[in-house]
């Protein structure tokens, strides 16, 4: 495999061909935030939090799926990048309904951590009707609180690619999109028995171990 040379935030980086910008940046400890990305899963590129500026490009590029190409000049913290990333996170926050402040799962929420980190000011955006779904606790292994879901689809990927179980699908479209089980049914033991791997990949606590029966919180 040949090497590619890129410049990230002013630093020369030698990456392997086929590496993404995200991977190349990590070689020199430049951290680019992500929500929908996991090194274990096929990239989806849906959250748009990892966007970076590539010199000469019309739009920003997702670092988690764009291959580093020889000669690329990349900015991971330019004003354009930070403004856009902040607004994207704000939009995700605005799409929720729920008690993020008092909820016990809040400390698990990567979105909230990211929002705090990006220091957005007063909320600028509202949704006509933020998402609200009843909490699903029928399954002893996975508790679903879909109001917290940011549609990153990592649960779908983990279930499909790692557990090889195919429990989840994505349904509806646009703002109404939702990660569903079967015909948008509650998650029961009929379809999902025990692995709970999706919980490890959920960035917001939409999926969690049930407090009573799931053991250690």
């Amino acid at each position, binding site marked *: 495999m040949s090497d590619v040379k890129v410049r990230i935030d002013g630093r020369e980086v030698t990456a392997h061909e086929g590496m993404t910008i995200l991977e190349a940046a990590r070689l020199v400890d430049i951290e680019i935030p992500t929500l929908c990305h996991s090194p274990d899963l096929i990239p989806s590129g849906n959250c748009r939090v990892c966007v970076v500026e590539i010199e000469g490009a019309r739009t920003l590029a997702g670092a988690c799926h764009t291959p580093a190409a020889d000669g690329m000049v990349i900015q991971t913290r330019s004003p354009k990048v930070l403004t856009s990333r902040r607004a994207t996170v704000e939009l995700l926050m605005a799409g929720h309904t729920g008690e993020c402040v008092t909820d016990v799962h809040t400390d698990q929420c990567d979105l909230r951590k990211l929002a705090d980190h990006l220091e957005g000011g007063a909320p*600028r955006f509202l949704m006509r009707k933020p998402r609200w779904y009843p909490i699903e606790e029928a399954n002893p292994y996975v508790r679903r609180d879909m109001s917290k879901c940011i549609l990153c689809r990592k649960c779908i990927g983990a279930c499909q690619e790692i557990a090889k179980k195919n429990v989840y699908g994505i349904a509806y479209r646009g703002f109404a999109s939702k990660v569903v089980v079967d015909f948008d049914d509650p998650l029961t033991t009929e379809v999902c028995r025990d692995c709970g791997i999706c919980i490890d990949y959920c960035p917001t606590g939409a999926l969690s171990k049930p407090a009573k029966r799931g053991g250690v919180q």
Partner: protein
Amino acid sequence: MPEKRILLKNCGIIDPRDINAYVAHDGFKAWEKARHALTPDEVVAEIDTSGLRGRGGAGFPCGLKWKLARQEAADEKFLICNADEGEVGAFKDRHLLQHDPFSLIEGIAIAAYAIGAQKAYIYLRAEYHYLSAGLKNAIDQTRQKGCLEELNITIQEGAGAYICGEESALMDSIEGKRGEARFRPPFPPSQGLWGKPTIINNVETLANIPPIILNGSQWFREIGTAQSKGTKLFSVSGDVAKPGVYELALGSPLKELVVDLAGAQDIKMVQVGGATGGIIPASMITTPLAYETVLGSGAVTVFDASREVLDFVYRTMEFLAEESCGKCTPCREGTEAMMEIIGRLTTGDGKQEDIQAIEDLSQTMMLSSLCGLGQAASIPVLDTLKYFRNDYENRIRQSVFLRSLRGQL
């Protein structure tokens, strides 16, 4: 400059159900020429030299696209004709499919030969199901004539989703999935349908191929402007006396199309390019229609002085929010947040901060969305803000006044 009928030359003249009528009007001569006098590389070079650019909206150089797919070594390559004309105000592809399907089939045959595709799909929107019988008939007759010996053409019908006109979503739809945008790279000419090299061309782009091959790229280059060669079909609707499909040399002034040909009067603004198209106010009505200025898919909607800008913006954003595939955050959440603001503005509940919020949101959607829908969704909003800012500000002032009457300031 009057209309220049190259693409429309057969429309309404010949019987679209009869291949013999098409053949009698130079039909399949370009195909014969390509097959017998030119190598695939020469066909690609000819299209490249002609300067033909995509007619679906994005305007990517057609020859370059073909060249990229041609040079890929693969056991399988695909050609897709994008007949998912979902752009609001667009019906020029419908017109071609209805009145001259053979020109499209000939264009497909030449394109497949040039890039080395053995299989072609025509992705036809569900709303145009009534055109599929005529199209199938044209394919069958062409095959019987012996012009499709090495190519298998399938008509693949959509099921009601504007986003499937976006090329990556279109491919997902053919693969039997939800029509969602894919990230790029990889680009379709290297990894498209099922990961194989794929060319996706709009109906009108493919209909341009036979005349270019037949008359030569130099002939084509003489029509149009520096960056915009050839003619373009425009579908004109809205406040005009004669809505319909018109063909003009690229670079023709907008005024000629909407006033001289379509008979518009008392114009307030014109949207060029469909739901995500740019806005041209009446004061700029002589703007040339070209890739350098404003063009898109050639959908042209005329609004007269009686129309409200914010009603238009609301309906447009509602359309985009309903048709967003929902995969990426800026488009899925952004169109919804935009609806919240514009909805309030139209119902008289605007706030001072709204314009700033619209501008901030637009910027992010444009820069970070995964595909053209989200990237272009804010164009009509930003353009109307640019030319009709007063309409927004007045609404906000009225809102503030109304609130003060209600004692809710």
